[in-house]
């Protein structure tokens, strides 16, 4: 085409008619010509700012795995006084697993965020290595030989990692466009509520572990359905709010300079508040209640850009929690568990708690204190003193050995994961994707806050898993699914703009009618 050769600036306008005549036909007659797939690698170089950065991801992933191997070697040096020839095997297995996911992403979500997988892989890998470290310590104290790679909790966690990565890869392969999820929003919402409710309905013998009814137990095997409910509920909230955001953000009354919504629009938020209070009462778990409620309020805030929702949410939550605390001290019954936890939090070293209910928090605090700034070194501490160090208190056990410096670096890695999720939410072009990514990233952040705050005595302790680190399949699988969803959304967000209908997969020719008229995106420059 001759257009390229025009060097003149404004003078070029005069001769515009000539090339257009030749262009006109092809333009009008070929409206639905399929656009080339943007996945082709040759395109990257021509579109600056839209690089896939898969190689950066690969390099970071290998770096993370080297860290895991160094950790494993240090553990063996400290515990066994020698480095065995097989110290690298768990790290190598993990590397293979993560490389598998990396390949899936490279071919199925080429523009996905390059930070998410390496950062999560580091935490997951260190979790596995720490669990293996506990296994070695246990075997040593029982005068047994060093456990095999697939033995003990560490080996189980390795297997769970494999299962989780398969799930995440399957999610990336099945869901080619995150908007498809909005079609099943009501199903997901119902599924989420049922998943939350199952443990509350089941008898305690089938659902209670350490006072919190969050589980479904089948013999020696147990799952935590609430972990999966998170993702389902985020999708449902996002879909609901995409439809209702106009009403929720338009009609309002202005009080003290803040726009408050009308009374009747408060319905859904009150419903979710009641639901989370029911969780608090019947499942005796503050953390999960806080998670669901915080999730809904923040999604609401993201959808409507109204700070008043945050204020209402915080007031309602703290009001509810304080009420539960008072009820617990007066009435006891279902509130007693929460009252105990709050009292332990207020004074963990109180004589009536320090040897029984408060013992785990006290041990956690002592462990963190022993670690100090730099820790005792991987493998040199004694995390065995902390109860539940494999699940809820893994961060305290880890903290004793890597100290404040190590723990804060892990917290920064978590922070970066959350930041990349929020980044994907900002960059993606449809409001459903925005709300899902924002909600998922926030949930992850809130869960980390709840558990790390709990074990350090910042907030009342409540049994949450440390995402990607704690031993346990449900949590690991659910959180890897969450990462899979974030990868999918960030791929859509960072992909250079593609063609309209022609370039989309055939499956979503009929978009959900409810999303019509939703604001696509508002990104402040």
């Amino acid at each position, binding site marked *: *085409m001759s*257009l*390229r050769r025009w060097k003149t*600036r*404004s003078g*070029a*306008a005069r001769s*515009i008619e000539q090339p257009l005549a030749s*262009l*006109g036909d092809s*333009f*009008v007659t070929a*409206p639905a010509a399929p*656009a080339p797939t*943007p996945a082709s690698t040759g*395109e990257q170089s021509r*579109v*600056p*700012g839209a*690089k896939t*950065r898969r190689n950066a991801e690969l390099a*970071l992933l290998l*770096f*993370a795995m080297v*860290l895991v191997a*160094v950790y494993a070697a*240090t553990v063996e*040096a*400290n515990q066994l006084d020698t480095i065995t020839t097989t110290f690298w095997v768990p790290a190598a297995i993990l590397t293979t697993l993560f490389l598998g996911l990396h390949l899936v992403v490279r071919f199925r979500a080429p523009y996905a965020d390059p*930070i998410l997988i*390496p950062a999560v892989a580091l935490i997951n890998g260190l979790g596995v290595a720490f669990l293996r470290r506990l296994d070695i310590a246990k075997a040593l104290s029982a005068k047994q030989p060093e456990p095999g790679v697939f033995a003990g909790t560490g080996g189980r966690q390795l297997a769970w990692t494999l299962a989780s990565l398969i799930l995440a890869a399957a999610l990336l392969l099945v869901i080619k466009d995150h908007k498809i999820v909005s079609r099943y929003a009501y199903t997901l919402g119902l599924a989420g509520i049922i998943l939350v409710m199952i443990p509350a309905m089941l008898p305690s013998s089938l659902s209670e572990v350490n006072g919190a009814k969050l589980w479904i137990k089948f013999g020696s095997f147990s799952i935590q359905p609430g972990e999966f409910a998170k993702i389902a509920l985020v999708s449902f909230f996002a879909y609901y709010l995409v439809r209702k955001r106009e009403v929720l953000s338009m009609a309002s009354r202005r009080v003290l300079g803040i726009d408050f919504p009308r009374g009747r629009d408060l319905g859904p938020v009150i419903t979710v508040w009641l639901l989370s209070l029911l969780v608090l009462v019947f499942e005796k778990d503050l953390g999960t209640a806080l998670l669901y409620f915080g999730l809904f309020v923040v999604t609401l805030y993201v959808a409507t850009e109204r700070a008043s929702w945050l204020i209402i949410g915080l007031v309602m939550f703290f009001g509810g929690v304080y009420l539960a605390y008072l009820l617990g001290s007066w009435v006891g019954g279902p509130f007693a568990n929460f009252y105990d936890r709050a009292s332990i939090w207020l004074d963990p070293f109180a004589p009536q708690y320090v040897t029984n209910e408060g013992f785990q928090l006290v041990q956690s605090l002592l462990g963190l204190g022993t670690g100090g700034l730099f*820790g005792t*070194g*991987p493998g040199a501490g004694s995390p065995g003193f902390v109860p539940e160090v494999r699940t809820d208190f893994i961060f305290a056990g880890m903290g004793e050995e*890597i100290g404040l410096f*190590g723990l804060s*670096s892990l917290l920064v*890695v978590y922070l*970066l994961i959350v*930041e*990349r999720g929020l980044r994907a939410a900002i960059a993606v*072009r449809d409001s459903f994707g925005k709300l899902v990514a924002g909600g998922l990233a926030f949930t992850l952040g809130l869960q980390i806050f709840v558990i790390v705050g709990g074990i350090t005595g910042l907030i009342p302790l409540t049994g949450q898993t440390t995402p990607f680190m704690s031993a346990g399949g449900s949590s690991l699988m659910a959180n890897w699914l969450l990462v899979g969803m974030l990868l999918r959304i960030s791929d859509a967000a960072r*992909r*250079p*703009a*593609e*063609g*309209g209908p022609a*370039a*989309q997969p055939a499956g979503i020719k009929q*978009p*959900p009618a409810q*999303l*019509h008229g*939703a604001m*696509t*995106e*508002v990104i*402040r*420059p």
Partner: protein
Amino acid sequence: MPEFVLTVARFGFLVLLWIFVFTVVGVIRRDLFAGLRPKSIVATPRGVGGAVNQGRPAAKAKRGKAARQLVVTAGQLAGTRITLGENQITIGRAEDSTLVITDDYASARHARLVPRDGQWFVEDLGSTNGTYLDRGKVSGPTPVPLGVPIRIGRTSLELRP
């Protein structure tokens, strides 16, 4: 194991952890500033574009300054940026458009932007209220110069380098 090796391993691990963190931050930083050239920070002054193109849908196809972004300058979506690739951009109220606008005066499939040899062309897709390039109504595929507003209802869009 000598004490020295253990100490090196203990601190070395912490240092490596932080090196990892800063490498990640470095990748994020490069990602943020990729494709951002100093020139492109300065937006085209509105007056200049208008003055040059008064009364005609002008085409000033500048060589070497290809459009890289589509920016919404007015309307509900003001501030939205879309990084341009090799593919067409469809604009309209339909959910499957590349840029979904909720403008009362926009049609479901209102217009599209198509790249041809590095130049972007705007084409009206039979909309009710028409598409305007600066002041002139778009009837056929029209080349879009950088910084000249495309108007669809209350929404204005511009190509930026």
